[in-house]
């Protein structure tokens, strides 16, 4: 499904990708003293958004982070202006699941962020064949809403968003 595994095409040779390159997970965010101080206001920052996005790949017991689909440097938030931008990188340039990955990211952010935020999810430039089309779909509110009316699509999205239980 959302897996970046499966078959990887490169230079005309078929390479199996049953064991994708695994990237190390960034450790837990370290707790600072100011975060425990009642009076300090902690702004929403890039790392916080990145932590929200620890989404599963239901086919692999790996998260999008471990597959390097989402990286912290590609997450940009501006708390004061209430904007969030997330770029994600499908590991295969023709990955047919790119829309679904993007949709999952978008839904996760919609559920996890205050209403005031404007959420922009798109593909890292130059990493996918039909980048523009996918971006357009993800930016279209109506189409996102319609997609989530589709119960089989919603099912896959929800599976990605379920917390891992092993």
């Amino acid at each position: 499904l959302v897996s970046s595994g499966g078959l990887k095409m490169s230079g005309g040779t078929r390479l199996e990708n049953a064991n994708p390159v695994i990237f190390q997970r960034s450790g837990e965010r370290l707790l600072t003293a100011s975060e425990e101080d009642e009076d300090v206001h902690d702004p929403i920052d890039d790392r916080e958004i990145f932590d929200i996005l620890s989404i599963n790949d239901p086919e692999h017991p790996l998260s999008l982070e471990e597959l390097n689909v989402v990286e912290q440097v590609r997450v940009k938030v501006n708390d004061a202006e209430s904007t969030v931008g997330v770029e994600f990188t499908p590991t295969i340039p023709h990955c047919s699941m790119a829309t679904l990955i993007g949709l999952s990211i978008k839904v996760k952010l919609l559920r996890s962020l205050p209403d005031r935020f404007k959420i922009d999810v798109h593909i890292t430039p130059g990493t996918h064949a039909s980048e523009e089309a996918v971006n357009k779909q993800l930016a279209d509110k109506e189409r996102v809403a319609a997609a989530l009316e589709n119960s089989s699509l919603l099912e896959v999205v929800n599976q990605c968003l379920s917390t891992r239980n092993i």
Partner: protein
Amino acid sequence: MAADSALLLSLVEEFVSGLQDSKAKDTAAGVKDGHFTVLQLVEALGLSLTSSQPHTRARGVQLLSEVLHECYGNLTEREVEVLIAFYENRLKDHYIITPPVLQGLRALTKCTVLPPGSAVSMLRSLFQDVHVQSLMLTERSCVYNMLINLMETREAELKGLGADFVFGFVQSMDGERDPRNLLLAFQIAKNIIHRGYDLGKFTEELFEVTSCYFPIDFTPPANDPHGITKEELIEALRAVLSGTPKFAEFLLPLIIEKLDSDVQSAKLDSLQTLTACLSQYEHKDVAEFLEGLWTSLRREVFQTSSERIESAGLAALTTLTSCLSRSVLNSDSEDSLSTFLDLVLKDCKHHLCEPDLKLVWPSAKLLQAACSASNRASHIITAAVMPSLIDQYSSRTQCSHRRTLLEVVVRFIQSVKTSQSSENEESVFSAFRESLCSMVFSALSETNSSLQITATSMLTSLAQQTGLLLDSDIELAVDHLTRLLLTEEDDRVSLAVVECAGALAALHPAAFITKLIPRLKTEMFTEPMDQDNNRVASEQYSHHAVRQRCLSALAAVSTQPSIVRESTPVLLEVLSSAHTGSVGFSVEEVVLACRSLQRIAEQVQDTEETGQCFHEVIIPRLLSLALQAALQGEGNSGRRSPLVEEVVLSAVVPVISTSCSRLQPTLAGQTASRAVSLFLDGDVSFLPDNSFPSHIQLLKKQQGDSWSQSQMVCLLMGCVCSLPRSVEVPQIDQLLSQLEEMSCTCSHPLSYTSAAKCFAGLVNKRSQGDSLDSLIQRTTKRVCSELDSTSSPVRTQAFTLMIWVAKALLLRYHPLSTALTDKLFSLLGDADLGAMAADGFSLLMSDSADVLNRGCHADVRIMYRQRFFSENSAKLVQGFNAAPQEKKPNYLKALSNIVNKLPKQVQITELPALLSLLLEALLCPDQGVQLSTLSCLEPVLINPPPALIQQLEALVSRLLALICSPKLSVRIASLRCIHALSRFPEHEILPFRARVLRALARPLDDKKRLVRSEAVQARGEWFLLGSPGGR
């Protein structure tokens, strides 16, 4: 007799025709009491047993069987013989009679006077005339129980049946479906295998009839009264399947097949069963399956999806390798171990040298699992992989690659550690000694912190191997460790360095004594440019950090008496320099020095030498320094010694109490009696630097209410309250009365609290009897009268003494504790002390760090908390109901303080009774009450009791009200509870979904990140609820 026989006839009549089941019991009682014999019963049954109606015959047999079930112990051999013949014959009768016949036979199998040959004949008739699987559940269980009984007592006879017995059993259990009966059947099968019954040509049949249940897939029904778990069945079946090498040819292919399964639990069961059977097998049993097993194990580790399966796979590989290692080599057979390891190396070794090191970890883990199996295996594997690992380490340039390689090497060294049996044997790694040493020292010299950390753990591992580190290497290692300790700012590195130094010092103390300790001392006592007043803060900070690391390193290396002798004087010198002011140590540094002393007292071996060191040198020195500081006074003008600070004294107490509780009881007793004479009589003769004035009265009221001397009572507590209970405290009555006086009159909080704790600590260990009782009564009276007079200036003091004494008595189940705890309950309504009383329950229920705990040898009964709770919860509920509105929070707080400390199991069972109170507590404006109630609720919500589900509406609305609390911790705790609610049965909580999601939108924008992250998790789960693909 005539009356008896008439009675018997009527009993039989009422049971058989009257269908009154209870008459069986009466008949059995009659037989037991000797009113009639079994023979008379059979005669009385005559007509029923020969009746033409099968139902009547069944009823007759049933009466006889039930009586036998109660009275089988009184039968004679002759009687048993006749009865068996009768029952065997009845097996051929109408099917409706079979159940009571089987019951009767089962009773007879329990007889000790079973005549020779009867077991065999019973079983022959059984196997011949009864088709077990067409019987009902209880009758099948009856058959299995007969077999189990006979196997216990008539083993030789049953073995005489030869393979027929096994065949009969196989037929009996073939098709069994009930888990209760399966447990019995597996037990019989296990007995057959383990007790050496002849399987004959039925080995495969026995395997088939049991292995068809493998892997076990069983989920007990909800509310299962029998309590049979999947694990029990798995264990029982595993004992059968792995019990004999004769099954190997059937079991191994089955396991290989089941390992292919997609079901995780089946994989896990297969791997564990494999491990179990391999420990019984020899190499010839597994020879033909080696390749298949290896392929499966490799796949499970390479493509693992769960850590449990991975570790089970690795454990199986280790057992397989050690099974092969057990084979005895002879010249004509091939060496199956090296054949197998060739296979492993062929598949794994090349992954260790791939340029991107992909798959390096799974390969290394497999190799290490094999390596740890036996000495021979570790020689073969290390010889094959170490050279290439060492080569690569020196040729690779990327830090992360080098670290990975270093870690792989460390794991190899550690994997071998476990298999080395004798100590003086040369290490497997001797051949690579020099390369490994140069590897570890080069890594220690790197600037990359993760390389440094890995290098320290490699150093520790190398030191554990015999003969790998020469003396010169140890010295070099100590130099490196010292350098890192003094210069490395990264906390993780210094933590690793300290740990490594501790491990090395335990094995090679000399180098640490000559090099590390003197160097650390010099560093700590150097003050950096302190004439220069505008020292940058960061420099000051880093000097403090260096001292901090030195202090913890001194503690870590002090495990051997020879090191303790050198390190503790340095720590004491820190304290005395701080006291005199000759070297500037901060209060925090002084506290750390005390912590280091405490840690040494905790970890050092309890020998005469270390005991002397602590009791003769360290404790007198500590007392002397504290006394000097106290006599200098609070020092209103000029500097005052850090040793009068409360934090420092509180850090000295555990040094003393740890020494007194665990080092050399005789010397500890001496320390205690010296301390008592110091505090009671002003005897300073045992203190070093003795230039003290003659009239020291530490426990008496001081002039001008000076506290610097009175607070020293906490040190007395350290000396006398942690002694083993066998050690007497001298002058105890006088001591107790002065402590009581001090705790009731002194106005300095640390002083009166310490006096109360010391009093309580002594009372807890005082032997039972009148003198104790009258002491308690006297104190109780005094305390209560102070508490009852609302104008008393020392009510707080009296309260403090009361609560500590109550705790001391409660812990040992002393009956007089009730008077004090009842007083505490009554104070919940007190205008001034109410809130304190509510908090007091937390003190009663929790372990205190410095006194009245098991470490101090206090008399602590198990489950005193549950006991206190069950005796008092009703009082609390009543008090709450009766209290005026403004006092109610105190009761709720007391309740949550008590419930919070109960084990979760007790909380769950008690919760229904208290639920309304806890729900009430959620409405209480006191944030402390809210917080402790939420923390009680959260674990209970994971397995919600029905009572809670009925109150869902109240629970949800009160929790939602708290997620906007002004207090951070309340917001977090309430969000966690709401998160936990999402796992309630779906149909119960679905109606709340929209409301909860709406309410959770607000904390998503909370100003605190910790709250937001809880809200995100909780809201995510609630979204998934009732949604496709969700839950």
